[in-house]
């Protein structure tokens, strides 16, 4: 590349960007956590919601946006993570924490929560394998319907497990989630997705999306890429579920139905499929929008829905996607 007279490819600059993003968001998370006490209950709760939705949207964007596999079952994975994490802190926590003693109680709780979140993520990833193996053979609408079906199956399973509270769900989950946990997870999630996609290996996700037949002819194994996207996406959705459960302190199966999946899909579409900054922005806007519309009370959801329709009509490529002009040289 030396001496040939052209600029180094843009790719080389991109290599260093994900780490910068990670550092920036980590710093932001630290700052947020420092000032969390001054926000008050309402704003802390809102920021937590925003952060969790960012994790959900960015992880779904890997599946729907970058890899082009339209999944409508993301809330199902979130549910698996939420239930797993909550079960660990509720059933194992009371037996484990007193052992640590009063002096280390705080640290033990932290460790327990971290382990619970990780377990939730891993459980969701396993669920991702179980769902992905049969359904990723399907394409387009059929895949969407299959994942929708699996999402509902998870919901019905939760409804029928007595030890997990059945239809009433789990109550009294300790409030371990704070802004620090949420935004650190969000930072890691964003970093992992961006870093994966910005590599020669990871360009395969986009190649599979653009043309599966051509990708296969270039020696890529589309199934492997789809599974990687699905499992990674499910993992982060599971962690987001754990954070969600330990924030609102009560979870029930209906919180993880297809309406929830749909909310996340809307964020991805509105942000622009495969456009991570756009999807983050959409997650923020769509979480805050219903709050801003609170003054108009009962018309709130009507206006929210109308806004979505208008946005889809005027900016179908995504609210935050400025399509680069095809460069004709």
């Amino acid at each position, binding site marked *: 590349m030396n001496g040939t007279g*052209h600029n180094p490819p843009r*790719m080389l600059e991109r290599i260093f960007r994900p780490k910068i993003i990670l550092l920036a968001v980590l710093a932001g998370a630290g700052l947020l956590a420092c000032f969390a006490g001054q926000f008050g209950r309402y704003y802390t709760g809102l920021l937590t919601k925003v952060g969790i939705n960012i994790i959900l949207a960015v992880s779904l964007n890997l599946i729907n946006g970058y890899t082009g596999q339209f999944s409508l079952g993301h809330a199902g994975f979130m549910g698996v993570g939420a239930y797993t994490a909550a079960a660990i802190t509720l059933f194992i926590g009371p037996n484990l924490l007193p052992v640590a003693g009063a002096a280390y109680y705080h640290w033990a709780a932290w460790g327990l929560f971290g382990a619970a979140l990780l377990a939730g993520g891993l459980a969701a990833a396993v669920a991702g394998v179980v769902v992905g193996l049969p359904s990723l053979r399907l394409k387009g609408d059929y895949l969407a319907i299959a994942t929708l079906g699996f999402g509902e199956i998870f919901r019905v399973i939760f409804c029928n497990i007595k030890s997990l509270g059945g239809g009433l769900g789990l109550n009294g989950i300790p409030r371990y989630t704070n802004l620090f946990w949420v935004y650190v997870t969000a930072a890691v999630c964003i970093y992992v997705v961006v870093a*994966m996609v910005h*590599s020669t290996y990871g360009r395969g996700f*986009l190649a599979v999306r653009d043309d599966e037949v*051509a990708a296969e*002819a270039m*020696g890529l194994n589309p199934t492997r890429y789809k599974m990687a996207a699905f499992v990674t996406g499910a993992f982060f959705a599971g962690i987001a579920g754990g954070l969600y459960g330990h924030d609102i302190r009560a979870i029930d199966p209906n919180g993880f139905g297809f309406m929830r999946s749909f909310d996340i899909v809307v964020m991805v579409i509105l942000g622009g499929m495969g456009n991570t900054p756009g999807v983050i922005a959409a997650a923020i806007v769509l979480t805050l929008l219903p709050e801003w519309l609170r003054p108009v009370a009962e018309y709130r959801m009507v206006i929210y829905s109308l806004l979505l329709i208008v946005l889809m009509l005027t900016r179908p490529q995504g609210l935050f996607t400025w399509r680069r002009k095809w460069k004709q040289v």
Partner: protein
Amino acid sequence: METGLSMAATPTTPPLLRLEDCTLRFGGLTAVSGLTAEIGETDLVGLIGPNGAGKTTVFNLITGVYRPAAGRIEFGGQSIAGKKPCQITARGIARTFQNIRLFGSLNVFDNVRVAFHLHLWQGLGHAVWRGPGFLREEKEIAGQVMEMLEIFQLQKYRDAPAAGLPYGEQRRLEIARALATRPKLLLLDEPAAGMNPTEKAELMKLIRFVEEKYKIAVLLVEHDMQVVMGICRRIIVLDYGVKIAEGTPEEVRANPKVIEAYLGRPAA
């Protein structure tokens, strides 16, 4: 290509690709019937035939899109029938498509970069960790991609989305992408389709160049007789899925069966 004629002799080493009695049926239609053919290590073979003769189907058989109902396909002495397309590419067969299939939203650089997939050391874990090995490999690949783009005179389009390229450049990019997988055999499916005479002449030069520089075998399906007769050392003629002739361009041109397949039987 007078010089090409002398090289058309049958290879003494086992052939690179061998089709033996291959048959493929779609329901009641026999698309390819009992096809036997060989391609040597530095062969430049043309596969021609009237519309619907089964030329692209033969490509799809070789690249694993279809599995033959009967017969054997051997590449480098090993059977590849029934293997997945990506496994066959890994063994050294790369292809282009009749209707160009680039990764439209990816830029030109990334289109070629993706094709290095088979020779990567890195995986997703390395991509997340971004250690020195990963960065070194990315730098190396960037250099190789740019080299490739320069050979194919595509470097000025580097950052343009592939879907926005002019037609001739898209065809060239597809060949560059296929070569980036480092194949032993390159299959070109109607590379001259939709090209004007100047572009065709350039394409012929390019195919000859690729064959010489990379020392690989080339099999091309083509409708344009000028291109086929101009560059191929050997030609296989298909009609209704059956091989009706094989030989040098001169032999094929003079073959009455070929004339009949293309023009019909002479009036009595």
